[in-house]
């Protein structure tokens, strides 16, 4: 093989360094001896538990709501479809803090939807674990919708026609033919949504606050600890890196494998 152009290699090395150096930096300052006690601290254990629960719940919510949304965007023709598609993908570019604020205005105790909801049922979303899940779903679902809609739009429609000719209702076709056909993309979408939810900070802190055990997820715990207890912040950061890497590596082989052209 010929030598690759030097300029590309130099830029590639700088690019890779951008990812590798912070990791090395993190490992360099890690208080290895106290790591055990730091990670078994109540704050850390609560945050880890909450992060796992809320990120998984948000990924599931994103799937349950996002797949029908993607299907509608892909298969149903209606006025304003392009607009709806733009709105659905908005959280991808919107600063999460703005998203959290918007959620607060709509669903907060004084919000347009939140106030009647609270008056009628006493259920208040902000500053609860449900609020964390909602904020996470808000930022994570676009990843799933985009992935699944792409798969639906490029999927072969003829097996669906074959299924209909065999007497299957549209819902049966969706459940037994369409969904299995796009399963790889759906799984990839769920993983992306989960990863995004795990790292979510801005919308969560704005909409759900920072209450240990209820709304304080790992990223929030890191941010709070940076001032008060640097070693704890480093330990939690390391924990997040490990959790993310373990999950991505475990899934990569099965779900992310690129099909060779």
């Amino acid at each position: 093989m010929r030598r690759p152009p030097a300029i590309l290699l130099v830029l590639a090395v700088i690019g890779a360094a951008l990812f590798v150096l912070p990791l090395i930096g993190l490992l360099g300052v890690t208080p290895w001896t106290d790591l055990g006690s730091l990670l078994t601290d109540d704050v850390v254990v609560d945050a880890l538990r909450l992060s796992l629960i809320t990120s998984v719940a948000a990924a599931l919510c994103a799937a349950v709501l996002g797949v029908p949304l993607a299907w509608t965007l892909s298969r149903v023709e209606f006025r304003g479809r392009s607009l709806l598609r733009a709105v659905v993908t908005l959280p991808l570019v919107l600063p999460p803090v703005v998203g959290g604020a918007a959620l607060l205005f709509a669903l907060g105790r004084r919000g347009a939807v939140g106030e009647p909801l609270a008056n009628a049922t006493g259920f208040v979303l902000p500053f609860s674990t449900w609020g964390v899940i909602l904020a996470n779903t808000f930022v994570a679902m676009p990843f799933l919708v985009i992935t699944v809609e792409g798969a639906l739009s490029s999927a072969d429609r003829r097996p669906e026609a074959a299924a209909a000719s065999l007497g299957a209702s549209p819902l049966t076709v969706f459940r037994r033919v369409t969904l299995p056909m796009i399963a790889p993309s759906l799984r990839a979408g769920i993983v992306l949504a989960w990863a995004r939810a795990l790292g979510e900070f801005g919308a969560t802190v704005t909409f759900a606050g920072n209450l240990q055990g209820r709304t304080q997820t790992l990223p929030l715990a890191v941010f709070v600890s940076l001032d008060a207890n640097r070693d704890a912040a480093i330990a939690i950061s390391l924990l997040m890196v490990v959790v993310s890497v373990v999950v991505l590596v475990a899934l990569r082989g099965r779900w992310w494998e690129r099909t060779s052209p």
Partner: protein
Amino acid sequence: MGTDVAVSPKGLSAHIRLTRAGFSINADLEVEAGSTAALLGPNGAGKSSVLGAIAGFLELPAGSEISVTLAERSLEDTTARRWTPPEDRNIGVVFQEHLLFGHMTVLDNVAFGPRSTGSRTAEARRQAASWIELLGVSELSDRQPHELSGGQAQKIAIARALAASPDALLLDEPLAALDVAARSEVRRVLREQLDSFRGPRLLITHDPSDAFLLADTTFVIENGRITQRGTPDEIRRSPATPYVAALAGTNLYAGLAAHGSVLLADHDHTFTITDTSMTGSVLLTVHPTAVSLHPDCPSGSQRNVWNTTVELVEPLGDIVRITLGGPVPMAVDVTPAAVTSLGLRPSGPVWAAVKATEISATPA
């Protein structure tokens, strides 16, 4: 619209008028229950649109006029704004590509129809298993579709369509994607299944030999219009258009091969072919331009030579179609000059010759 057509109560009738992207289709089809009709035409003639309209797959352009009646049930009638979704038409479809569901076993593919129409899983699987057995492929039940050969997959697709107990069967080029060996095997299975299927069956094909072997009636479609309908024999005897003449002129003979000789099934004649290894049922194709005509017995080796009489002399554009009588009815295309020089006229004697290499044989 609303043309009354004499179709037996269980038959299928379809009237289709539609224009899509500048291409218009105007076709009326009737298929009796218990009979197979072929819709024969070149690529782009509108065959798939006709199938799509009958099955309910087609998104109809504005201004379309469609009526589809099956077993006395009006499935679609644009004048009455009636439209039945595909899942309620009870029309089985076998596609060119098998379109089996890749994530299900063969058994579950075949059980899909019964399950979709309300059977419990166990009952649906039982029905599926008996269809798979009927087609002689029980050993494939637990396989995934990607583990099947093209011919096996198409057989399963046929079983899947039949297991849904449809009122009519549509076959969209079911043999076109298969290699030669698989094609004759699937054609055999298809012929058996079509024979025992009670409803109307419509075979869509561009291959005259499929129409010849599988259908009782053939509709020829060209450019969105039905240009001729009739039995294979009728179509061969009086082709209505140059396309039909070229198609129908392709002489097809069923026969039994052994040691390079083929004894014809319907005629008292034997042809010599080049493939000496072929045995059993075969289908012979002789192109009308491959036959030479002579005033006297021609000399030369390795040739099929026989004495016959001219039945018909028909000018078809810049060629003349000669129809030969017994022992082997055959269409031959010659130049007008040859007609004059050979003195060809109805009832006149003539010698016909075909090289063995010009006779193509496929297992049937």
